[in-house]
């Protein structure tokens, strides 16, 4: 997966340059070519693989794209000319499902009688009922939506039909339906308080039904209410408790999360069992459509709020409110947004009116509503009577004034205004004090957080003033959103041709700029006119506000940027659209942060915060996060540092992007005779919309005209424009203090990487008590606080080769001029022979590959060159399993050999007594030689070849070039230089080294498995047991496979005989390595096939059979050697399968307290009708059923990754306490040469500590409680699946007799 996406992203500069969108948008049309990369021997090159691997590692986090735009088709939807964008988002056939709810609505008398019957059942079937509630509710909702879609004619027709259908049905059939229908209603009325959150929704759903019965709504309500009442009474004590939680969740949760996930939050106050329930999964298609529509309304209202156009916001709200079908899309927060925009203007009578609208819609105001009202009154200095009125209402709604300050987020001066309003009537009122900071209680981190042993946080080599200055630089960069830097190619001399082409480009661009601007303004104008005339929501143009957020010039700028970076091969429409709109979005977020005055607050806190890090200030015994929280509290910013959620739904993103793309395609023209004056002068489009065909799919592409690509090539422009979030930070990152605050100053960064629309991670993090996240937040902050600098001599050498002809052996991609020339042939291409065509194609493919590799290297080197004299930081975040990644995508320490070689710690430390030895051992490790030798032997070897090392360092390009023939040549070269410098210094022990020394886990996944299963043989082969020389698991497996092969060969198995002499460590290595991460036989076979292909004299005819045979033997060998590992893997897989089959996603909590959920759901495609073509967008979100195959296959590797990330974080935190510099590339830990020994000790200690926890036992208990705890007392009727699941989950695999403490003495555990 990651490979494919990488390939997609590498295809061209267009894909590479965006602020990270390419990863989220998978173009399946590129997958075919990606496959060829891996299968086609002629084009396969090792460096591509290396880049891919490094990338893949980095990207593993973002495994499953949430909005996977993978199929773009021109679905010829007939007569769908309707202009309602909301409607267009719906799937084309909602009508089919109509009869069901219709039939339900048949009898008006039934609901109440069923409600009565329900009372009895409720006590015993609490849980079941609630699930049904959400199902039935969405079913009703579905019916109504379907109705909304149906043409009036069909509506009239279907009604009698459906009724007629309902009647002849047998009673048995009709009953459950009526039941399902009655439940939501009874529920909604029965627990109005406890379910304050769920109520509006349930009510909204129940209402359409009431309408379907053609009875006054109020009447229906009245009948249900008294009957349901008795049920309410036993609930009241809990209800009052739940109230607080409800209100809280409402005020802080994002608009869309309010909808789906209200329940888990509510249940905090209710029985403990329910807390463990999964999120209420609404019924598939319709609920997610409902969600999309709701999100669209919210984000549009937010736009009006941002634009300070309360009139427009209110008008939009009224359009929805007045339409009975659309009204149910509204929820309280939609009204709240409008209230907030009026509050900002201080118009109380509008807010009064909105309050009454809320009431008429059947909603109860929330804390946010009152905040808006009070803010407004604080602004316009209202009379105390009015303020009293609202305060009384607030209390009568069951809120407390203090809650306003505890649970609401504030922007700008909102907080002050609210306070001043309250003080008008309660002069002595003081906002409640902030909650006391809590400390993490995890047993693994007791030492770490205990205040007794605290050492001060390591200081940076900067003064406060210097750090402030750097902060300003960083801020300036982020405020600009993009940064344009000189590429490393700028050093090349300029040709006259380039000068001419550049002039031409400048001229064309200014023309295009004007044309696009005109087109944009024209389209905005026509939208505005249409909007002003709109009487209904359906004729309302939803895009208009999104085109007003930024100055027109900025939209034009964004479009022109995309034009510049479009690859000559073209780019899929969907990708371009996403890119355009997400650029608009990031700018909008920046503007919002400015408008809400968040920046000033962050700046104020940051300037105090750097005292913790600067060398010239008092040592403080705080962690960065603690210190930041303390400062925020002191400044009284409490809840005003976080922005209210304002994400845009994918439908809006796609539509906005498509609209901009259409403008761009239509507005840009160039004269046809630009390069060939013989032709007549005619303006032709620069961009073309064509289709590419993939089997039966067709993918829309935007292709630049070859003339334009030619000019771009000729101009050879040497500036590169990056998003500011693609650059390393110039000041220490803001510490992570919550799931949505940290890292960059302005750029939106999420603690957990996920893709658009995947809300479940964020929700899980938000529900999690903040104190549980502290270890993870601290670890990420710590990793981000490591300062870096550039290894300039190495960078210079690399750039010189890069600007010359590149070097494929050394991983420096050559320029396109070095690409193989396609054979020239006379005549029209259509008359060429097949082989000629094939050759031309291969050349083109090779060139495209070279181009993307070259661009990738160009970006990395250019960024490195840009920061060559600076100290910089890589802010970190993590994927959903807790694996950490640096945020800047191109240049970071996770990169390939080249990028790693040019990075140095900014902080220097003396080598100390063992430092030089470690440098030498590190060098030998980098060469890949002496893998099975002891450390002493490696050191001896290094001393032996000192001559070569000296030569490499002194004459890297002219000498004997020993360094070039190593596994990681560039890092080896850098290391040679460091060793030489150190050994030439008068006292090597005192030599200040900035060089990072790495320690790798040997097959880290298997190490964790072996430790989990206490698997003795496995533990030995992955170095958990002390040995004099390192054990090599790959050789061991190869040996085992060879043994199997011999036996088979003796028995006369043909393929076993063919394979004689071909089984080596290299052949099996990749498969063994990935087996722990869930590689399948299929994937394993491909890996082995690739290795066999590399062996020259292996008979090609047997490739398939041999690889098939070998992968089987490798799996068998692993089974034999790691018996416990296989058991554990099977147990995990089987458990995940059963959980997923029961309709829930697999969740667990790492030993550090990080909650994890696997985000794999079945996907669904929605067809968006955009002007240029229909886009089919695949989405998978939490409202759909889990994807069992993915849930099951991914669980073992994800679980192991969550363990290795825990181990890394534990090591990181404890290293901090010992004053070490520490960074990691997953299972490769870096520190100074001086501190390698200490780091190794901590690493081992933490591994032992981690596995001393009962990890599998805890997992089993957690899951049993989560998935199997039945709240109903009648346990007799436990479903069989539940029994099976329970059995499976309790049956934890047995462990072997390996003594974990042996790890403490194992030298080669990490080496």
């Amino acid at each position: 997966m990651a490979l494919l996406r990488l390939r997609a992203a590498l295809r061209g500069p267009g894909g590479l340059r965006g602020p990270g969108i390419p990863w989220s948008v998978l173009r399946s049309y590129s997958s075919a070519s990606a496959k060829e990369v891996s299968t086609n021997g002629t084009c396969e090159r090792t460096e591509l693989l290396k880049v891919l691997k490094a990338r893949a590692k980095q990207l593993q986090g973002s495994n499953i794209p949430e909005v996977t735009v993978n199929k773009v088709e021109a679905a010829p939807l007939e007569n769908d000319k309707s202009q309602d964008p909301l409607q267009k988002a719906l799937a084309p056939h909602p009508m089919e499902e109509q009869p069901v709810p219709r039939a339900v609505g048949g009898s008006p008398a039934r609901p109440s009688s069923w409600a009565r019957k329900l009372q009895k059942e409720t006590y015993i079937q609490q849980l079941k009922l609630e699930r049904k509630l959400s199902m039935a509710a969405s079913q009703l909702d579905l019916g109504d939506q379907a109705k909304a879609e149906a043409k009036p004619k069909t509506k009239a027709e279907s009604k009698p039909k459906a009724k007629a259908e309902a009647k002849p049905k047998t009673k048995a059939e009709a009953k459950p339906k009526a039941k399902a229908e009655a439940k939501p209603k009874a529920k909604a009325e029965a627990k109005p308080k406890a379910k304050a959150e769920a109520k509006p929704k349930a009510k909204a759903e129940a209402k359409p039904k009431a309408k379907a019965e053609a009875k006054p709504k109020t009447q229906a309500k009245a009948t249900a209410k008294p009957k349901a009442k008795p049920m309410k009474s036993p609930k009241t004590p809990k209800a009052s408790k739940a109230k607080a939680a409800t209100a809280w969740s409402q005020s802080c949760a994002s608009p869309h999360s309010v909808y789906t996930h209200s329940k888990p939050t509510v249940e905090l106050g209710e029985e403990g069992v329910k807390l463990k329930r999964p999120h209420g999964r609404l019924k598939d298609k319709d609920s997610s459509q409902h969600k999309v529509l709701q999100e669209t309304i919210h984000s549009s209202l937010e736009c009006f709020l941002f634009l300070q156009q309360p009139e427009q916001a209110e008008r939009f709200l009224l359009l929805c409110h007045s339409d009975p079908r659309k009204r149910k899309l509204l929820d309280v927060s939609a009204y709240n947004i409008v209230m907030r925009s009026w509050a900002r203007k201080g118009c109380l009578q509008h807010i009064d009116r909105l309050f009454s609208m809320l009431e008429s819609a059947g909603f109860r105001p929330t804390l946010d509503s009152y905040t808006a009202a009070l803010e407004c009154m604080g602004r316009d200095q209202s009379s105390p009577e009015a303020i009293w009125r609202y305060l009384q209402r607030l209390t009568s709604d069951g809120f407390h004034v203090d809650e306003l300050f505890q649970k609401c987020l504030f922007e700008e001066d909102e907080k002050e205004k609210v306070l001043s309003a309250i003080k008008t009537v309660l002069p002595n009122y003081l906002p409640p004090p902030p909650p006391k900071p809590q400390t993490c209680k995890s047993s693994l981190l007791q030492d770490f957080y205990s205040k007794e042993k605290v050492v001060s946080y390591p200081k940076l080599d900067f003064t406060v003033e210097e750090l402030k200055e750097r902060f300003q630089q960083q801020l300036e960069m982020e405020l600009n959103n993009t940064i344009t830097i000189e590429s490393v190619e700028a050093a090349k001399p300029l040709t006259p041709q380039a000068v001419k082409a550049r002039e031409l480009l400048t001229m064309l661009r200014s023309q295009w700029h004007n044309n696009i601007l005109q087109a944009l303004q024209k389209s905005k104008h026509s939208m505005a006119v249409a909007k002003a005339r709109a009487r209904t929501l359906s004729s309302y143009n939803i895009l208009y506000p999104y085109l007003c957020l930024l100055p027109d010039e900025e939209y034009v700028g964004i479009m022109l940027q995309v034009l510049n970076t479009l690859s000559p091969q073209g780019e899929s429409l969907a990708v371009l659209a996403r890119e355009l709109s997400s650029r608009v979005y990031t700018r909008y977020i920046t503007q919002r942060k400015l408008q809400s005055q968040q920046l000033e607050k962050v700046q104020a806190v940051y300037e105090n915060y750097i005292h913790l890090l600067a060398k010239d200030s008092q040592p403080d015994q705080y962690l960065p996060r603690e210190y930041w929280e303390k400062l925020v509290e002191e400044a009284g910013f409490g809840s005003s540092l976080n922005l209210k959620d304002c994400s845009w739904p994918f439908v809006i993103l796609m539509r906005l992007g498509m609209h901009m793309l259409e403008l761009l395609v239509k507005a840009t023209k160039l004269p046809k005779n630009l390069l060939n004056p013989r032709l007549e002068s005619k303006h032709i489009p620069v961009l073309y919309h064509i289709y590419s065909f993939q089997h039966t799919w067709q993918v829309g592409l935007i292709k630049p005209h070859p003339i334009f690509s030619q000019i771009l090539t000729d101009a050879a422009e040497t500036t590169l424009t990056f998003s500011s979030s693609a650059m390393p930070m110039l000041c220490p990152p803001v510490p992570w203090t919550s799931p949505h605050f940290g890292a960059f100053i302005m750029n939106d960064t999420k603690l957990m990487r996920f893709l658009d629309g995947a809300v479940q991670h964020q929700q899980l993090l938000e529900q999690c008590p903040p104190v549980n996240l502290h270890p993870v937040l601290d670890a990420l902050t710590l990793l981000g606080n490591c300062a870096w600098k550039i290894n300039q001599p190495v960078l210079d050498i690399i750039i010189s080769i890069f600007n010359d002809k590149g070097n494929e052996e050394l991983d420096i991609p050559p320029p396109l001029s070095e690409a193989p020339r396609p054979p020239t042939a006379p005549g029209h291409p259509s008359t060429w022979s097949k082989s000629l065509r094939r050759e031309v194609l291969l050349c083109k493919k090779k060139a495209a590959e070279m181009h993307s590799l070259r661009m990738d290297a160009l970006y990395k080197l250019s960024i490195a060159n840009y920061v060559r004299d600076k100290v910089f930081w890589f802010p970190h975040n993590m994927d959903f399993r807790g694996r950490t990644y640096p945020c800047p995508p191109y240049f970071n320490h996770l990169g390939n050999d080249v990028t790693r070689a040019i990075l140095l710690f900014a902080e220097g430390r003396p080598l100390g007594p063992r430092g030089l030895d470690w440098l030498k051992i590190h060098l030998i490790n980098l060469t890949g030689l002496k893998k099975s030798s002891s450390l002493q032997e490696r050191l001896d070897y290094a001393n032996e070849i000192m001559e070569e090392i000296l030569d490499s360092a002194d004459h890297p390009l002219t000498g004997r070039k020993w360094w070039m023939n190593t596994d990681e040549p560039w890092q080896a070269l850098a290391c040679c230089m460091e060793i030489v410098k150190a050994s030439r210094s008068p006292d090597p022990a005192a030599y200040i080294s900035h060089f990072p020394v790495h320690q790798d886990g040997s097959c880290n996944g298997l190490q964790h498995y072996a430790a989990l299963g206490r698997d003795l043989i496995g533990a030995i082969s992955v170095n958990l047991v002390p040995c004099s020389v390192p054990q090599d698991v790959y050789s061991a497996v190869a040996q085992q496979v060879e043994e199997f092969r011999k036996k088979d060969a003796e028995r006369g198995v043909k393929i076993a005989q063919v394979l004689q002499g071909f089984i080596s460590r290299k052949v099996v290595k990749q498969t063994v390595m990935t087996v722990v991460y869930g590689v399948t036989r299929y994937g394993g076979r491909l890996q082995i096939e690739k290795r066999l292909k590399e062996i020259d004299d292996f008979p090609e005819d047997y490739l398939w059979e041999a690889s098939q045979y070998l992968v089987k033997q490798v799996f068998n060998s692993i089974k034999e050697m790691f018996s416990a590992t296989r058991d554990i893997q099977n147990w995990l897989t089987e458990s995940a399968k059963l959980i997923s089959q029961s309709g829930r996603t697999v969740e667990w909590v790492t030993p550090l307290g990080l909650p994890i959920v696997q985000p794999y759901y079945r996907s669904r495609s929605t067809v968006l009708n955009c002007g240029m073509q229909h886009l089919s967008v695949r989405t998978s979100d939490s409202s759909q059923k889990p994807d069992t195959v993915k849930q099951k296959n991914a669980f073992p590797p994800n679980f192991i990754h969550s363990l290795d990330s825990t181990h890394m974080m534990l090591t990181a935190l404890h290293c901090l306490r010992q004053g070490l510099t520490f960074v990691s590339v997953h299972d490769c830990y870096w520190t100074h040469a001086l501190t390698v020994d200490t780091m190794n000790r901590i690493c081992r200690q933490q591994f032992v500590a981690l596995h001393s926890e009962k990890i599998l036992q805890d997992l089993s208990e957690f899951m049993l409680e989560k998935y199997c705890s039945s709240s109903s007392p009648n346990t007799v009727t436990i479903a069989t699946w539940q029994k099976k699941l329970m059995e499976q989950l309790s049956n934890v695999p047995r462990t072997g007799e390996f003594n974990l403490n042996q790890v403490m003495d194992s030298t080669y555990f990490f080496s």
Partner: protein
Amino acid sequence: MLAKRAPPGAAGCGRLLAEALRPLLRGLWPCWAAGPQRRGLRAAEEAPAERLVQREKRSGVAVRRFIACPRLARTVQQCLQRGAGPGPQPVLLEFSPGPGILTQTLLDAGLRVVALESNLAYLPNLQSLENSLDGQLKVIYGDFFRLDPLVSGTLKPPAVCSDKLFETMGVAAVPWRADVPLRIFGIMPHTLERNRLWRLLFSLYECNSIYKYGRVELNVFISEREYLVLTGKPGRAWAYQALTVLAQIGCEIELLHMEPWSSFATNMKSGGLAIPKSKRLPNDHLCLVRLTPQQNLFTRGLKPTNAATFIFMVKQCLAKPKSRLRDRLNSWSLDNTSKLLKELEIPKNAVVRDLYPEDYRRLFEALQNSSTFAETWFCEDVLESVRTINL
């Protein structure tokens, strides 16, 4: 096109089966039992019902359909022989015959048959039949849909190479304009049906694979929805597609017979019918369609060498059926599109879906003559497109 609706034929017996006896007998059909004793098929008859149609043990195997009812077999045999002139008949290649009931019927009618079977389990039965005859039947192990696979490397049976196949059959290549050198009959598996049709059309236009040997006549049962697409009329939504244009220009399409899905036996473990769903077009039958390549296909500007460009052009045009032809042409940055359309007497505002297949052919011929066409970037894309489709 002689798209006549054929009489229901054996549908009656099939339906009967589907409703009542299928679960009991699994292939031992009532009408079969009543039929006259036939030579050669004793083995099949004596075998337990399960052996007649091999039920696949593994799930996930592609669904195969068989003619298991002699009445249907007779109908098919009559259809195949309909319209045959006097004189010697070409050999008939039957692919995936399975239990061989149709094979038997064809042999009885005096045809020379080559059976190409990919499932080893059916081979012994067919081979014993072959041995009992005097060269009237030839049985070959191979899969018609893995004919000339595009992957490199050695061919592993049941993949076959058309050269070998034709050599074994003893069929020699004839010029394009000559008579049909070979007739083929089979049931198209519904998985990847559309891709298989595309593949066939590509080989037809490029004179590859089986079409290297001349205008091979194909008689296949395809699903009704694909039949409707093949024979779609201009302007019809859903049915008029790129495939339609190419099929109608490439060959004569003749509907020989329509038969409900239920008349066919499947290899499903459950004995289910596995009828593919169709959203927009009716799909209640399998249609026996005769596809005879047009004799005059390569007479005017179209040649096997430039056919790929033609195919690509048609696909590009019909990718968005409601767009105007003018816009499509403009997007290939051609000069004077309007003049070209005028010459071809195509209305300026013509929508691509409304053009007749012949119009596309004329358009292509005109473009081949236009000097600017070769200069567009269009041709480069043809290469890529061909690669992706042909794989």
